[in-house]
Structures are given as C-alpha cells and as structure tokens.
C-alpha cells in the first residue's frame, strides 16, 4: 500500500547531491595539495628510465612544457575550469587525453568491482548467517578463523595463490587478461570466464568484514526478544534467521556497503595489476607517483563519486531497513 518512502529518500539523495559538490572540491583540492607536497617529481616520472641518463637541459625543457613548476593551486584551478567546460585535460603519464584514458578502461573496472562486491555481499552474508546460527559450533569456528586469516592476506597474495591453484593446478580458469591471450574478441563468454578469478579473489578479500559483521549482528539478534517472539510464533528456522535475526542485524552490513567501497577500490588496484585486468584502478598508482594531475584528479573524482554513491546507497538502504534511523543524513 505505502510502498517505499520515496519522498524522503529523494530528499536525502538530493541533499547528498548538493553536498557532493563541496566534497568533490575538497577532495580534489586535497589530492592536488598532497600530490604537490609529495616528493614525486612529474618530470622524472614522465622521463621514466630515460630520465636517469637525460641531460639537465632536456629535463628543464620537459619541466617547462609539462607546467610542472606551476603552484598546485593554479593547476587545480586550471583543471577545475577545464572540467567545467567539459575538458578533462590530458594525461601526461599516459600520453593521452584523460577522457580517453578513462573511457577505455572504466567499464572493465566497474564490471570487476560490481561482480566482486555482489559476490562478497551475498556470500559473506550467507556464511555469516550460517556461522551465527550455531555460535561456537564447528562451522562457526571454521568460518571465523578463515575470515580473520583472510583479512591478513593481501589480495595480491591471494591472487597468486588463486592463479596457481585454478589456472595451473586445476587448469580450470584463465589466469589473467580480459580475453584469452590469443584473441582480441571481447565476447560475453570470454569476459565471463576471465572475470571469474579476479572477481572471486577480490570478493574473497572483501568477504571477512561481511561475514564477521553478519555473524555478530545476527548472533546478537538471535539472543534478543524479537527473535524469541518470532520463534514462539512457530516460524521456520530459516525465516527466523533471515527474516528476523538478519533483518535486525543487517544495519552494520548495510553500512559496510558504503564503507567498503574505498577498500574495494584499493583491492581492485592490486587485483588489476595481478590479473592484467585492463581497468582503470591500476592506473591510479601510476597517476599518483607521476603526479599526473589531470588524471589523478579525474580518478579521485571517480573514487569519490563511488564512495559517495556507496554511502548514499547504504544510507538509503538502512533508512529502509531500520525505520528508526530514517532518512535524515
């Protein structure tokens, strides 16, 4: 009858959109500032190995032509005014317009992250519920121990292990790339097969938080009166777990959806490198260390947008999931 409380949700989304502007300004300014303060030298980075033997004159010329001596505020302002007119600038480290750099790669990163995140959330929630069902039981102990252990395992390390196991020992999945090395044809089947391993590794590296928070939330909820009430009504164990305990214990999990986005990006950054995935995250480190301001700014904006969206999504979801919280943020 009532459906979703669309009006307050829309108001919240609108408010967030307004706030996004100062947040984006602050973040990009901050990134320009720290990048400028960092000892990385755009000229050396541009020159790469050639820089070691380059003559001072050549370097000076390069410095001049890259505008590397301009104060960062100027560069930020230039970038900003450029962006307003639709010009994202040109990436010095990729020798390409920023729009091209991003356009070519962003889709694959989104695909990887989306699949991984979905898997992490669904599988993490399921495992967490199963573990919480019998706290202290064998399954619980196994799942929690593995979760903690995984949290200590860096994604690139998991990636290596996964490649070793699935590509080498079992020969079940391709070890990297977007398509088979021998072909350039991007077909659905190829991509689906190739995304499986990197996405799983990324998902597994994200899973511990979901598993443990679901376990904690559901476990606590199981001890409380509402679950007692649900049990007394004769609901099936599954309904009690999913419909009551999980629903009550879901709040932190929904919050995680927002807060794990930065971790997801960090993870993607490493996973893309390990699996030769042609996405954008791997370019972040290069953009940062070569102080490629236009690219760095664009990537930061993307990351910020992802984070803000994730947070908005989780805030909306927990307004829906817990009516006591509401859509006030």
């Amino acid at each position: 009858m009532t459906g979703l409380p669309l009006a307050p949700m829309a108001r919240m989304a609108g408010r967030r959109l307004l706030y996004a502007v100062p947040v984006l300004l602050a973040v990009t300014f901050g990134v320009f500032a720290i990048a400028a303060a960092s000892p990385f030298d755009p000229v050396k980075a541009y020159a790469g190995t050639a820089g070691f033997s380059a003559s001072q004159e050549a370097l000076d010329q390069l410095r001049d032509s890259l505008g590397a001596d301009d104060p960062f505020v100027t560069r930020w302002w230039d970038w900003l005014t450029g962006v307003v007119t639709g010009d994202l600038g040109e990436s010095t480290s990729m020798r390409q317009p920023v729009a091209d750099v991003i356009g070519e790669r962003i889709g694959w990163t989104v695909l990887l992250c989306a699949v991984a995140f979905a898997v992490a959330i669904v599988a993490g929630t399921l495992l967490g519920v199963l573990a919480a069902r019998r706290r202290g039981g064998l399954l619980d102990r196994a799942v929690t121990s593995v979760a903690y252990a995984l949290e200590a395992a860096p994604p690139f390390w998991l990636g290596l292990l996964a490649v070793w196991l699935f590509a080498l020992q079992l020969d079940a999945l391709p070890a990297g790339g977007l398509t088979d090395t021998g072909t350039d044809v991007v077909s659905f089947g190829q991509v689906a097969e190739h995304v499986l391993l990197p996405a799983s590794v990324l998902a597994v590296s994200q899973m511990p938080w979901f598993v443990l928070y679901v376990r904690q939330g559901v476990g606590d909820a199981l001890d409380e009166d509402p679950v007692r009430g649900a049990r007394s009504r004769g609901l099936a164990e599954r309904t009690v777990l999913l419909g009551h305990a999980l629903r009550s214990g879901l709040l932190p999990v929904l919050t995680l959806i927002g807060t794990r986005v930065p971790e997801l990006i960090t993870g993607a950054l490493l996973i893309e490198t390990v699996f030769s995935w042609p996405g954008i995250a791997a370019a972040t480190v290069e953009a940062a260390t070569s102080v490629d301001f236009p690219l760095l700014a664009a990537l930061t904006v993307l990351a910020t947008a992802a984070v803000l969206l994730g947070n908005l999504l989780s805030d909306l979801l927990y307004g829906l999931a817990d009516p006591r919280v509401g859509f006030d943020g």
Partner: protein
Amino acid sequence: SNPDADDDSGGSGGDGATAVIGVSTEPDTLSPLLGYGKDGNSKLFDGLLARTADMELRPALARALPEITDDGTTYTYKLRDGVTFSDGEPFTAADVVFTYETILDPGTNNPSKGDLEAVDSVEAEGDDTVVFRLKYPYAAFAERTVLPIAPEHAAGKGDVNTGPFNTEPIGTGPYVLDNWRKGEKLTFSANPGYWGGKPKVAKLTMAVIADDDIRATRLRSGDLDGAILPPNLAKTFAEDDDKQTVAATTFDHRAVTLPTDNPVTGDLAIRRALDVAVDRDAMVDKLLEGRGKAAYGPVPTDSEWFAQGTERPYDTARAEKILDDAGWRAGDGGIREKDGQRASFTLYYPSGDKLRQEHALAFAGDAKKVGIEAKVESGTWEVIEPRMGEDAVLAGGGSPADPDFDLYPMLNSELAGQGFNNMASYENPDVDTALAEGRESGDKAERKRAYDKVQQELTENPGYIFLTHIDHIYVVADTWRGLTTQVEPHEHGFGSGPWWNVESWQPAP
C-alpha cells in the same frame, strides 16, 4: 578506443604461428617521437640502422651504413627504395627529417632527446638522402640512428605529446598494431608488405604481467609462450622439457656508489678495501643462480672493451690489511674506527627492487666481515635522490652499444652530482682526460686504450664498487628454433629478449 573494434585476427590462426610473450611493463607510448623504441627492435618501426645479434650496426631503412665525413661531424644516409608504411604511404627522407626534428623540438616531451644532443641539423637531399650535421665530432653517433622513423603524414597530425599517434602508431616495421588494451596486452600481426619479408610469426601478443611470480605461473600454465623471469623463477623451469631457457648477456651492472663527500666512503682505503672485500662470485652464484658475471667496472669481462687484468679477486685478508695500514682499527662492535670516525655509512636501494635489495644486503654482509658497516635503507628515488651526495646507493645501469654511453656520464667529474649522472661525484682528472679522448677519437684502437686507462684507474680509486653483471633470462616454449639474443642494456623493454628479432623466428619442424 572500443576494445573490440578491430578484429582481423580471427583469420590469422590458420596461416601463421602465433607467439604470446609476457612482459613486465607496458610502454607509455608507442610513438618514436616520445621515445618509443629509441634503442631499436621496435617491431612497429624501423630505424635508419639496426643491430645484428652481435650488436654490429647494419643498414635498415638506410641502404647502407652512413658515410662519415668532415672529421666525423657529417653523417650521410642513403635511404632504401620502395619502403611503405603500413598504411600504404611511401617512406621518404622527409619522414626522417620530420622524426628527428620533431624529437629535437623543445615542445616535444621526449625525455631522451639528449641522446641527439650532438645533432646540429638534419636535412633531406632529395627523396632518398638524409644528412646529419653534428656540433662536434661524435664517434658513437651512428649508434643513435637506430631510432625508429615515424611517418610525417600520420604522426604530424594532432598533438605530438598526447595525440592519437601515441596509441595508434603506423610504421614501416615487420608488425602492425592490432589492438592495445591498456594494462592487459598488445597484439600485433605481421605486416604483409614488410620490406624484409613477411614474418613467420603471424601474430604476436605482448601480455602485460607486472608480477614476476604471476608471469612465471602463467608461463607454466601454457598461457604464455615466453617471458622474462628473475633467475630464481627461471630455475624452476630448468627441468621442464618443453621450455627452453635463453640467457642474454648484458651490460646491466649493479654497483654501490661511494660518494666522495662522505668521510667514510670518500676514504681511499675504505674504497679499496671494499673493492676486494666483496665476494662477487658468491653473489653471482647465489643471488643470480649463476646467471651473470662478476663485475669490475661498467664494462663486462667478456666485452671487447674490457681492460684485461683489472679483475680483483675476493680477498678479505688484503682488505683488512689495507684498512689496518690506513689506520682503521677495530672498534665498537667490530666496526673499525679512525680518528673518531666509525667506518659506517648508509646504503640505499630503491624500495621494491628485490634484486637490488639482495645485492645491498649481501654487500653489507661482506663489508661487515672486514669491519665496515653499511646500514641498508630503502626508499623511493624521491627519497634517495637528495641523499645521493652523502649516502651510498645501490645503482644499476649499462648500455652495450658503446662504452662512452656508460662511462662518460658515470665518471666525468663535470657531471658530478647532476641528476643521476656520476652519482658518486667521482673526481679523477686522469679519468676525465681519458673519457674525453675516448669520446672524440674516431680510431677504435685509440679509444680502446683510453677506456683501458679508465678501467685501470677504477682499480686504483674505485668510486663505485661494481658487483655483478646480470644476465637477463627468458624462458620460451620449445616450439621455436634458433632463438638468439643481443647483448642487452640495463633497460630491457620490448626490443630485448629472444624476441628482439621475432620477425625472423622459424617454427620448430
């Protein structure tokens, strides 16, 4: 930019072999104007000259080796006829002039334009002759003209620094670019109209795999046909029947800089003691799994430029004697002292470089045995660079083409402390003189004498402790015959490895 835009690769499966090669980095650009392929073997392009397996220059787009006149200041190249770019346009002298002039243009962000510093002017004389005039006689100049030639009609359009030519190159080379999916791979197919004949390997893929271990694993899983690997991983393929290991000898050295301004590393006795205290053979054996050579200078022992007799055997007793004689006496914790100065210095290596870390640790271990402490620290180049004047650095480098390329910037006192040139601020007037002689003389014997002198001086006053020359190791599937390598420089990009001449590979019978 659509990833699946060009797909003419499907048909090539039938009419030719394919090769998939794992490389660790991808190029920033494929435009020669910004430095791609400047040392030759660029696959997509040709230079005026090219190198043979023995690093001899041979004609490529030029019909013959250049004619050198005016006391070595004028180089005249006659161009090959009938060469076309892969888009069908003919190759002319104008393209050569365009290429060199664009690189030298101050607006072009080509960091290695210093290589062409000697060039005064480039002129076309007719369609098939190009004349380079130099500011000063430069014996090694011909070596620079392996630089790839870009077509004026294609590369001249758009911004040279960020234009589309960077990612969609057109050249005269044996291969054309099919597709470049950044971060994943580059695929090439054989250029059917290649002036040198269509290559047997019809399709060439360079898969970008940054991590050594992953590269090794993918090679093992059959995903790759060949890859460059560090020695310890290459070793794991030794027993593999369908893999061959190809080791390229190199000029790629690892050395510890001993800054002159540091009271410890600047001390001659310390330098000489360290020079004989390091167990180079053990390093080759253990760190490189035997894939390399002990280094006594930038020039490897098997180079024709090596000054015979300058090898220094490992001799801790001698090192201790040198130190004792110089007044460095054992002090606290086994570290020597002299006039209140502890024989201790800091040794940086660039963080993340495992091989250098191992060299640094091994060096420190050896130094400790004779009572000298090298405190190993790591840092990014940004951290290291300002400290190079006082602290030792585990440096690397090496370029096989000509001894001048290495020795001059490394040892010339004029370049002391300038960027990464002469990192140890080495100052030795005799060396300076010899370097100038070697650089300017056109006579090979004369040059050899000069460089011998330099190497001799290094034994007397080692400003760097050279440790090893590192072989570059490639593991390749056994489906190919007659793989060779060139002598490789420190940097090994696309043009190195057994695939330096992939265009002439023959499939195994």
